[in-house]
């Protein structure tokens, strides 16, 4: 029997997805830095070593290139590795493997080779961790044909999307917000999958569309609460996957509201917001009643000290201000 309104944290939801897929398919295994004995630096994989043993939940050396490279090789032979790169920043050490190998093997081989690899990693500032432990690098991956890029924002989405990622025949970059692992939400006990390329409307509204990703979804929802008090009915859409992108849902919403704000925690310059803004600007140009507004991290490295770090990332207050300005 299912428990109505069962609440899980995002970390628990991810762990449950990993566990279910490992039980379902003996070819699924986990490896990465600290994933086994320590249960992951964010405690996401706690308990999986005890249940599945060191053959399937394995600590690696701190060697990002070979963590991903070995994942690619095992995937080429048909296994379903889930590798963890502890901080998104560290994925830069594996970029040849991700960009030149994993992303291109199917194409370079004319479809002869599949790389069913899932790379779990993190994004997000806010922990006073400075410039090498705080970046949100999704735009870099989304720029590379051959990769799929997933950005869950709720426990429900995290579980359903991760199960889809593990079963996907192509390499998937699954990016978790390190600040929201303990956020709770409903996750049904029955099995479900969430297909890629299907955006989710997190709040329905008619006056303005706020397109937000990952860590910025709760920030956008908080902003819409404030806006509602001022009589503004905002719609919040989470694309959930940058690649493939559900352009139609974004365009349909903006055609309805005539105004759009795009919010993503990556740097503003050449960021995911730029692509999303161009998608809605091209797709809904004749319906726009104001320019599309983008909000992202300032174009500076993430600083350490709190007063510096706290001004870098978009806030609910900024979303409210820009929404009101666009509606003025």
């Amino acid at each position, binding site marked *: 029997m299912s428990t109505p309104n069962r609440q899980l944290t995002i970390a628990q939801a991810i762990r449950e997805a990993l566990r279910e897929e490992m039980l379902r398919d003996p070819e699924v*295994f986990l490896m990465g830095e600290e994933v086994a004995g320590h249960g992951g630096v964010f405690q996401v994989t706690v308990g999986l070593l005890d249940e599945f043993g060191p*053959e399937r939940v394995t600590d*690696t*050396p701190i*060697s990002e*290139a*070979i963590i*991903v*490279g*070995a*994942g*690619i*090789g*095992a*995937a*080429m*032979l*048909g*296994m379903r*590795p889930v590798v963890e790169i502890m901080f998104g920043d560290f994925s830069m050490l594996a970029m*040849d*493997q991700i960009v*030149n*190998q994993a992303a291109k*093997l*199917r*194409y*370079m*081989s*004319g*479809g*002869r*080779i*599949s790389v069913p690899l899932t790379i779990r990693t993190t994004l997000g500032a806010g922990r006073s961790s400075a410039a090498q432990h705080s970046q949100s690098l999704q735009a870099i991956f989304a720029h590379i*044909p*051959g990769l*799929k890029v997933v950005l869950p924002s709720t426990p429900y989405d995290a579980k359903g999307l991760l199960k889809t990622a593990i079963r*996907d*025949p*192509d390499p998937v970059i699954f990016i978790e917000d390190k600040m929201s692992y303990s956020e709770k939400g409903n996750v049904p006990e029955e099995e479900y999958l969430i297909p890629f390329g299907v955006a989710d409307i997190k709040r329905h509204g008619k006056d303005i569309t706020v397109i937000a990703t990952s860590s910025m979804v709760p920030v956008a929802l908080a902003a819409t609460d404030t806006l509602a008090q001022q009589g503004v009915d905002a719609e919040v859409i989470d694309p959930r996957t940058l690649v493939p992108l559900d352009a139609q849902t974004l365009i349909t919403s903006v055609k309805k509201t005539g105004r759009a704000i795009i919010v993503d925690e990556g740097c503003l310059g050449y960021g995911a917001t730029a692509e999303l803004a161009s998608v809605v600007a091209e797709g809904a140009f004749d319906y726009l009643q104001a320019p599309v507004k983008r909000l992202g991290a300032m174009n500076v490295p993430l600083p350490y000290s709190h007063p510096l770090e706290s001004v870098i990332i978009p806030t609910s207050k900024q979303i409210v201000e820009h929404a009101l300005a666009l509606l003025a």
Partner: protein
Amino acid sequence: MELSKEKLLTMYQDMLTIRRFEEMVFETYRNGQIRGIAHLYIGEEAVAVGACSVLRRDDYITSTHRGHGHCIAKGGDVNLMMAELMGKRTGYSKGKGGSMHIFDREAGILGANGIVGGGIGMAVGAALAIKKRKTDQVVVAFFGDGGANQGVLYEGMNLAGVWSLPVIFLCENNHFGEFTPYRTVTSGESIALRSTGFGFPGVRADGNDVCDVAETVGQAVERARQGQGPTLIECVTYRYFGHHSGDPGVRYRSKEEIEQWKSRDPIESLGRTLMENWDVSADEFERIDEKVTNKIKEAVEFGLESPLPDPNEVTADVYA
């Protein structure tokens, strides 16, 4: 290790197949029938053939930008290879890969690679999958003296060592990384010594002696099959041609050096052994050459007659 006459003749024929293939690639490149660049393997045939002679079809290799020899030696189809080099739809990768991207999973070819050292990571991963599935296959990761200076090799050797994976790191030291003599950019007495710190054997083989390569790699393969882990092998050989088909290869080395290595040609050396120790006649050599040459000519014909890809195919195979 005593090899039979049949085995030696097979190795001779395989080496000659690679050489005739590469000669034809050079010719078709000069005719403009192959675009882009091709990195020729001439002079190094004993390494690919010796190593692959001790592998089973269900074993795996990862190859390099100079990969035609490895692919032929592991059982790749020369027709599909030549068509791929010509950018034809019938090629191994439907014309999407070219010279540096030949894959044949059934033959155990996990790909040539356009990134120096690019195949090492996936070779370690393939070995990891083999170990997890508890089969007794092995993986040979070919790389050059250039690849020997890539960081991923050391991450890979460490992981293969600590997890005792069935992988052989096979460095083909052909003396040049692109246009640079390896001695000027490579520290230490030998590349083979570099496994010492990782706690598994590192050995040197004469890369111009197919029997020495076969014996050395054979021992490493046995070790790997028995679960005793990886081996690093440095096969010392020499690249006759330039870095690629458009490089004459004369500006960074002397003619004397090239001639000296050519006097130790791997195919001629084995030919002499077969003639002197196994009474193989001049007629028989001629028959082998004719057979091989015809096979390569047919591959060229197959390639030339094959259709080019349709521009509409450009978006296929990005994702499943």
